[in-house]
């Protein structure tokens, strides 16, 4: 064990962890919007809208994240027509390719988490609202959505942690995130064990923070209080 190497690589890895957190927070933000949108489409009675939303979540939950990121980064980059459009401004950058892949992936999972949360809301609660003369719109925004979000917290916390680990795939498209920098240090020191232990420790610490934050939210919004 090369303790000196572990200590000297720690600051570089911590800086890289910021990139990881940026990737994570950006894709979670857009993913949550997409997830909510598609969850609403999923509970729509119209079969076409419903199937369309289902198709999206099936596609992105049914293929590995690595394949998705490769198709978006290397695959789309090979289409000559695309390179002449304004889309190339975004797709040219590995950072945005990673964000697009992560967002679409987490959006698919989030939509399923929220959909099941919507469906577990007891009809009695909605009926109670109706009998009080509250409009459907207000029932949806003020009753269904808050309950669904509370219900989906534990599962969504899991999704955040999975996504955080998923961001390590950004290193496969040249991004210098936590895993990318760890690999870079290894390529000059040839000591994978030491460097990956430190990197793994940082991931573990981030998981610890996320886990406790979700736990705190669950407690705060629990029904029993």
């Amino acid at each position, binding site marked *: 064990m090369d303790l000196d190497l572990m200590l000297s690589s720690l600051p570089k890895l911590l800086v890289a962890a910021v990139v990881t957190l940026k990737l994570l927070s950006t894709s979670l933000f857009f993913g949550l919007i997409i997830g909510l949108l598609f969850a609403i489409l999923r509970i729509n009675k119209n079969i076409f809208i419903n199937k369309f939303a289902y198709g999206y979540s099936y596609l992105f939950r049914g293929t590995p994240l690595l394949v998705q990121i490769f198709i978006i980064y290397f695959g789309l980059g090979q289409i000559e027509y695309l390179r002449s459009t304004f889309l190339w401004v975004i797709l040219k950058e590995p950072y945005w390719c990673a964000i697009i892949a992560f967002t679409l992936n987490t959006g698919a999972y989030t939509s399923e988490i929220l959909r099941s949360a919507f469906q577990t809301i007891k009809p009695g609660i909605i009926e109670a609202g109706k009998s009080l003369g509250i409009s459907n719109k207000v029932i949806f925004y003020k009753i269904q959505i808050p309950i669904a979000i509370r219900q989906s917290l534990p599962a969504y916390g899991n999704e955040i942690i999975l996504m955080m680990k998923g961001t390590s795939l950004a290193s496969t498209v*040249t991004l210098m995130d936590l895993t990318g920098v760890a690999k870079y240090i290894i390529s000059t020191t*040839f000591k994978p064990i030491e460097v990956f232990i430190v990197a793994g420790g940082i991931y573990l610490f981030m998981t610890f923070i996320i886990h406790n934050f979700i736990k705190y939210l669950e407690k705060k919004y629990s029904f029993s209080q």
Partner: protein
Amino acid sequence: MNIIRKTILTVLTSLFVIGNVYADKIKIGTEGAYPPWNSKDASGNLIGFEVELAQELCAIMKHECTIVEQDWDGMIPALLMRKFDAIMAGMSITAERQKTITFSQGYADEVASLAVMKGSSLEGMDTPEGVNLSLGGSDVKKALKTLTGALAGKTVCTQTGTIHQNFLESGDVGSVNVRTYKTQDEVNLDLTSGRCDVALAAAVAFTDYADKSGKPVVLVGPTFSGGAFGNGVGVGIRQGGEDAIGKRDAKLLKDFNKAINTARKKGIISKLAIKHFGFDASM
């Protein structure tokens, strides 16, 4: 309690010993993704200059060999962890790597070069044909200055953990925007897509790709050798030691050196080099 401890210890040591003393077959690690040095055919078999050379060297050593595939970025760690006994993967002999492993004498040498897509503004750079960084002098300085100007603000792509990356990060050509990839294939892909303005690798890696893909990839600027580019490509082997394994590694180094001598005298290396590179890259 004692028995349990003993059993565990025996099992653990046997795990390590099996990996080590499995001595008679030499395992050689290669990347299989750096044509024409080493690559894979359509059905996944390892082919290329080094794969054939390894077989020739093993025949001379009268040793049975197996060639195993290993990703480039884990090549030296895998050697150190005894996943194989020798590296033949277009790995240049550099002082940096020699801190960790040792090398046989070089068996082939080949220059590095920048490459761009046809029509790039970097075409027609005013530099000498070749730059040997070990020589130094005003010509080299002038060429590096021209390159520094040409590469400023450009995205330069190269494979992770290579002499090419070391050179780009050495400061010899200023502080360039370097982007690193896991394999040379990915560098080629992003060069053609336009994400990379220019790429740096072994010159043959580009000409081979241009030939096979039909893409208009062209070499620009001088060819590079010496300095950060190392002293030719050799067989990477663990540094010898006093224990049984260390002695075996030391012997392996001697055997490889002898075999390379023989192969060179017989013209085997030249013949294979001409077959795969199109010119005599042997040394």
